[in-house]
Structure formats: C-alpha cells, structure tokens
C-alpha cells in the first residue's frame, strides 16, 4: 500500500493556504509526520481521510485517485484517530467499541474478538465496563486508537496518538503500532520527536504547508551530522547569551553547569565538541537550515 501526493494545495475560505503545492510518497510501514503546531499536518491527514477536498493537486491510495466517486472505496481502507475525539460518554468502553465496530460494518463476532485483543494490547481490559466519561484522558486516547484499528484498515492515520499517555503506555502503543504496520501503512503524526525515533524509519517534516524534508531517518541524520555541537556553560545567564548567537537544540543541567547542544554550520567560536545528531537536532537543523549563517 502506498500513497502518492502530487502538487497538493489546500486553501481555506479565508484564503489561508494550509498546504502549498506539496509532493510526497508514503510507502508501507510506519511513516512519521513531524512539524510544529499549524504546519499543516492535521490538514494533510484530513485530506487523506477524505474529510477535506483539496483546492489543487492529486492524491492516490494504492492507485485509486481521490475523487468523489472513489471516496467510498478509499474510506473502506482507512482507519483514523483524530487529534481530538470525544467518544460516547454514556456508553461503556466495551459498548462504545462494539457500536463503532458495527457502524464500520464488522461482523459482530469478529468485532468482539478484535475488541478483546486490542483491549488486552492497550491494557484496558479491566476498564471495559467503565463508562467513557469515567475514563482518564490517556485511557480515552487508547480507546480512540482501538476504534481506528478495529476494522484492521490497510491505511491507518493517527494524529498524535500518544498525547496524554504515561511513558509505559507510550511504549505499549508504539509497539502496538509497529506490530500493526506489518503489510500496512501507518501515518503517524506528532510533534513529539521521541515517538518517531522509536518507531519510524521514514518521515516527512512539515512547515507552513510545505515539506522541508521527506525520506529516511538515516539520511536526515546523515545530513545533520557535522552541524551539531555540544558545550558546557557555567549557568543559565551564559546559556541565554549563547542562545542569542546560535540555534540551541537542547539545554540540560549537569554536574558542570549546563550542557548545551548547538546547531551551527561551522564550529562555534567557543569551547565545544562535535556531537552525534539526534532526530531533535535534525528537526531543528532542517527547520532553520536557511537561517543558519554559521
């Protein structure tokens, strides 16, 4: 299953261009979508789920072109977890999933079997008789993910699935998505870099409706190598001064004061050492590449 996006443009009624002549190819497996708030990630996903009609360009899913006549065929192949979703507060978790499964057209026995499996996988089995309104934010998020997985879609689109989850649950969900992505495509949107590092080998970086990068994680890190530096500052004041001169990707208190990671084309004029780039560094490098003077 692959998704091809060519020259895609999405313009809203107030003339804001959310996606600007974007090209992308999403292959099988988990594909990461990274970008700041308002970059156009959710808009792209809304186009892919057929919620939004693009103003221009073409999108195809496994060769099926996105157009009114093909929407029912495309919709059958998609599972979607939106960024925000309030599932039926008066239903129990089990009832809610059974109801949404029935709406998807999944046979009842198969649906119950899958619900049992995914409740187990997301550690929600003991909460299945609780009403949706009684669940915590993280539990609701996991329930939302189950409803997206229930129809076992060929193309799963998840918008920030790990929001509100504790570290242990985060790992559990990531593992679930990795298992699920076998022979399928999962589009994983987030601004939490750590999530993508753990699950994706391919990703795209978005900013202001354009793709700053699309390709393999390895290639992105290779591009960033040689532009990341680490140094130590005595205190926060000195660190602030350094921030005025360079792009700082992270600051951490350590035994020697503050350990700072800088993004710079050339070696900074302070005592520092080259560092192995992380995805966070690479994201900042790609994002600010044009403004890096040093």
């Amino acid at each position, binding site marked *: 299953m692959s998704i091809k996006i060519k020259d895609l443009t999405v313009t809203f009624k107030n003339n804001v261009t959310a996606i600007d002549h974007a090209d992308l190819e999403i292959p099988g497996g988990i594909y990461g979508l990274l970008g700041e708030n308002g970059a156009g990630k959710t808009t792209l996903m*809304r186009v892919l*789920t*057929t*919620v939004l009609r693009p103003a221009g360009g073409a999108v195809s899913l496994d060769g099926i072109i996105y157009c009114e006549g093909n929407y*029912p065929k495309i*919709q*059958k192949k*998609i*599972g*979607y977890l*939106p960024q*925000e*979703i*309030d*599932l*039926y507060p*008066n*239903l129990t978790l089990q*009832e809610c999933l*059974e*109801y*949404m499964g*029935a*709406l*998807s*057209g*999944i*046979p*009842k*026995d198969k649906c119950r079997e899958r619900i049992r499996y995914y409740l187990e996988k997301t550690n929600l089995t003991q909460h299945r008789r609780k009403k949706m309104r009684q669940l915590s934010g993280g539990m609701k998020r996991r329930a939302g993910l189950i*409803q*997206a997985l229930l129809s076992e879609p060929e193309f799963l689109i998840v918008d920030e699935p790990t929001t509100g989850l504790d570290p242990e649950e985060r790992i559990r969900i990531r593992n679930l998505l990795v298992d699920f992505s076998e022979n399928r495509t999962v589009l994983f949107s987030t601004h939490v870099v750590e999530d993508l590092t753990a699950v994706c080998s391919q990703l795209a970086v978005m900013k202001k409706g354009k793709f700053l990068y699309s390709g393999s994680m390895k290639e992105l890190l290779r591009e960033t190598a040689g532009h990341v530096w680490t140094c130590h500052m005595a205190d926060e004041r000195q660190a602030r001064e350094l921030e005025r001169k360079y792009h700082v990707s992270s600051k951490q208190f350590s035994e020697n004061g503050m350990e700072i990671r800088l993004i710079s084309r050339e070696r900074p004029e302070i005592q520092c050492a080259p560092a192995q780039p992380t995805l966070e560094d690479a994201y900042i490098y790609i994002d600010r590449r044009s403004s890096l003077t040093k």
Partner: protein
Amino acid sequence: MRTGKSERKTVGSERKNAGLGLNNVRLEMKISLPLYKIAYSLCFTVILSMIRGVILTYEIGISMEAPMALLALVFCADTYVQEITGRRSEVWRLYPMKNKLASMALRMGIQEGMLFLLSAAGYGMFILIQRPLSLYTAGESTENEWSMFLGFLLAMFVTLWFWGMFSAVLSCLLRSQWAGIGCGLVLWLVTNSTFGKAVLGDWNLFSYTFRDIENGGDLSWLWGKALCAGLCVIMALLAPQIMRKRG
C-alpha cells in the same frame, strides 16, 4: 471446501451479523436518550398539562400540538450534530453511508417514539389533572372521545416526525444545533400564528390546531398533515446528501 449453498449461507449469516442489528437499539437509546433529555421532556409535558387551561376535551389536542412540536424541535436537534460537536464526525465519514443512515433512522425512531408516548401520556394528564368536560357525553357532539384521541394521535405522529426531522436535518446542514433550533423556531412562529392560518389555510403545518372544532366530521386538516409527511419524505431523501456534504 465449501459448497455454493453453504457459502451463500455463511455470507448471509455474516451480513446478518454485520452492521446495525437489534442489539444496537439499546446502544442508540443510551446515546439519543440521555437522562437529562428524558427529564426535561417529562417536566415539559407535566407542566404543560398543568398550566395550559382546558375546559372541553377537544381543546386538549389544540393545546398540545404546537408546544409538543416545539419540544420535538429541541429534542431531536442533536440527532446527528452530536457527532460534530463530539468531534466524531471525521471518523463517521469513513463508515458506509448505509450504516450511518440506519443509525440515524434508529435514533430518530427512538426519540420520536419517546415523544409520541409522551404526547399520549400528556393527553391523559390533561384529563386527569384538569378534568375537562366532554361534549359527546353531554350529547352536544357526535365525535366520541376515543375517535378524538385517535385523531390526536395521528396528528401528533406526523407533527412530531416533521418537527423532529426538520430540526435534525437543519442542524446537520448548518452544523449547529442552535442554528437548527433557531431556524425551526422561525418556521414554528410563522406557521403557528393567525398569519400562518390565514395564508396557508388547510395546508398549514399546524392544520390540526386550526381545524374547525365545531365540525367533527371535517377532515380537511389532513391536507396539512399530508404536507408534513411529504416534507418528511423529501428530507429523508436529502439526508444522505446533506450528511455527505456537511457531516
């Protein structure tokens, strides 16, 4: 290896197993009839039967039709729009249209059923609380109480369907429950007025309320109800398109 016959049987049972069966009625009831809706509709009917004064039994139907239509307008407005406000509509978009329509029809049926029962109960409450006089018993009318009640039930069935469906469809079209209720209220005010009576005559949406009560055999009010039923059919036919475009 399966024979053709057994294969057909399996496909048939899978179809039966899939989608929205009778088991879903319970879930739809939990979704479309939350406690607060049951409570306010009950209160509305009880209070109406207490404060709207009637002297004769034939006044009960007149007293109930328009207020119950208003209740239906508010009660059914969130039938689909709750999927939009609950931010589930983007997931709903992926479901087959047939299942979405079946679910909406079920929700409408449940809500309208509840309002219909409430209307019938309200009629009884008027009699119990206000003890109106019967012209039939007094020998001044040929229309007995039961035929009057059946006429009332028929009129209410159509009236409730129309106003409930009107607000549900309009709310979906405008993507707002309050906009749907607001627009419905304008139509309610126009048709439930002397202006509406004068202009629309027998074709008024509240033709039962404006009927000639002194002539029990006059059934010309059925034209207005037929118009309501016809509009319901048109709205039902438009519903898939509206859900596709605005859902």
